């Protein structure tokens, strides 16, 4: 029977070429869908940042804070489209040496020519029926870029000009971070191919770099009026809605799963399985293990280090994940748990030093959580994942290679942030006028109170000794003592009186 039917079946079977083409198409569409849905999930990061920062702001600054997060999308998207993606495609070797010809690696010709596909006039940067992957891959990176700008956003709230933030956000999101991604977070990046630099889920290239850039900006921006007493002790401004802040953080955590997934590469007809950004083998399950237990460890570390403070407990979760992201494709869950606990504790400690010792007013602890823990995460890979073969050249990761990355990225991030904000400060475009800061930015920017149905109660500030007092006379006194300028210098108020 079978011997009779077999020739008929074979005659009716489609040609192998047709089957091959359909399998290729299915594979491409699966890849396209995968990145598309990571982008959808990653939007939650930005919903989260908006809620997180708006909750941390005082009532008088709620909408001006939220609007920063919304307009981040308005400025980082076009700047990243027009030149950010080109930087990623063409600066892997540092300054592009071969024009539009990306470095080609034997056996991985797919990398060659990537540069010329990233210019805004390239066929891959518009609707293209022959290309299912380039657009969604670009979009995933665009969402990473929004994230870098949003990391900075919260630190500057309640006194930065919206327009100044947008300029700085575009610089960070579409130039600075993507340059470091080209160097250390790509298959052909010089730090990877020469030194085995390993930062698989972007501890440093996203978080650490955004934190270092933010630090440079904060030095020029200065603290909010009244944040520090004239003898240098820190007051605490109470955010208007801690529940909203915590919900925002939980949304960020949800979006992080999309972020983590988008850091991997998959296309079944080209690669044999999941790869990290350096095209080294890994699995989606491996990184899901690490991110989940990273949150657990971070919450634990943050809780104990802050003695149960709600804000720092949740921020500790973020810090824990960031601390283990660099090695998320390598770590055993137990190792990730232990390292994340240490990361959560480190963030709390670093946040205290930055606020109280260095007297830098980082309103949400972004420099401690993202900056310090981002660098810490890459440092940990040098210790716990030394010898792991990284990237297309199979260069072993090492402490020296990780150090090379940190030394390259610290100035790459800090200096542009510092000098761009310095320039804006000199042009008087960095900070809102002191009078507007005291009254609240929302009335000046939007002409309205955004909780009109609620009674206004006196704003409270917490003095360094823990007393809660009416904020109005304290802030007004600070305004006059410092001639309307913020100060962190001991006795600066008396000098000017």
């Amino acid at each position: 029977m079978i011997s009779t039917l077999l020739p008929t079946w074979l005659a009716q079977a489609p040609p192998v070429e047709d089957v091959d083409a359909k399998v290729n198409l299915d594979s491409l569409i699966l890849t396209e869908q995968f990145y598309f849905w990571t982008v959808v999930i990653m939007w939650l990061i930005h919903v989260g940042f908006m809620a997180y920062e708006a909750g941390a702001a005082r009532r008088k600054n709620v909408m001006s804070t939220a609007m920063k997060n919304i307009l981040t999308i308005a400025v980082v998207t076009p700047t990243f489209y027009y030149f950010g993606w080109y930087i990623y495609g063409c600066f892997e070797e540092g300054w592009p040496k071969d024009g539009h010809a990306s470095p080609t690696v034997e056996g991985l010709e797919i990398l060659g020519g990537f540069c010329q596909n990233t210019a805004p006039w390239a066929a891959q940067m518009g609707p293209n029926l022959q290309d299912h992957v380039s657009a969604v891959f670009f979009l995933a990176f665009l969402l990473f870029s929004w994230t870098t700008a949003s990391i900075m956003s919260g630190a500057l709230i309640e006194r930065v000009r919206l327009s100044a933030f947008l300029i700085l956000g575009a610089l960070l999101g579409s130039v600075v971070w993507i340059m470091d991604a080209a160097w250390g977070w790509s298959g052909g990046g010089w730090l990877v191919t020469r030194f085995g630099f390993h930062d698989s889920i972007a501890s440093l290239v996203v978080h650490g770099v955004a934190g270092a850039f933010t630090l440079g900006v904060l030095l020029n921006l200065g603290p909010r009026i009244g944040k520090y007493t004239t003898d240098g002790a820190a007051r605490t401004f109470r955010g208007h809605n801690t529940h909203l802040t915590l919900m925002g953080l939980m949304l960020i955590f949800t979006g992080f799963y999309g972020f983590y997934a988008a850091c991997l590469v998959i296309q079944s007809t080209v690669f044999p399985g999941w790869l990290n950004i350096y095209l080294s083998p890994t699995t989606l399950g491996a990184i899901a293990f690490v991110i989940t237990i990273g949150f657990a460890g971070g919450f634990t570390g943050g809780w104990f280090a802050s003695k149960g403070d709600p804000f720092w407990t949740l921020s500790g979760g973020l810090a824990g994940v960031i601390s283990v992201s660099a090695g998320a494709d390598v770590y055993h869950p137990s190792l990730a748990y232990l390292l994340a606990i240490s990361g959560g504790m480190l963030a709390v400690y670093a946040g205290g030093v930055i606020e109280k010792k260095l007297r830098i007013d980082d309103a949400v602890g972004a420099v401690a959580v993202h900056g310090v823990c981002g660098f810490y995460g890459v440092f940990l890979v040098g210790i716990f994942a030394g010898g792991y073969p990284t990237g297309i050249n199979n260069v072993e990761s090492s402490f020296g290679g990780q150090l090379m990355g940190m030394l390259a990225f610290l100035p790459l991030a800090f200096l542009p942030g510092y000098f761009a904000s310095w320039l804006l400060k000199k042009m008087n475009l960095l900070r809102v006028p002191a009078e507007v800061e005291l009254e609240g930015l929302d009335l000046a920017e939007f002409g309205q109170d955004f909780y009109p149905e609620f009674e206004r109660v006196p704003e409270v500030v917490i003095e360094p000794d823990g007393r809660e007092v009416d904020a109005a006379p304290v802030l007004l006194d600070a305004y006059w003592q410092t001639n309307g300028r913020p100060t962190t210098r001991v006795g600066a108020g008396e000098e000017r009186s």
Partner: protein
Amino acid sequence: MFDAFPYDEWSEDVAEFWTFGGEGSTGTWILTVLGIAAMVISFWGFVQLENAKLRRQAERLRSSGALSRPGASPTV
């Protein structure tokens, strides 16, 4: 590739229309330049609009005396 409907043929027609001529064409260049111009102008607009709002409000607050020095008559 598909014989159920003329996908390939339609694809060529569609692609020719929606890309304004495809990679490196005059249409694509013009759109790119216009897009970059809109982006730059929007940055200028963000700065100018906000600057005007902030200066107006700061001036209003200074002249109103709402932020007078505690325990002293306003000096500005």
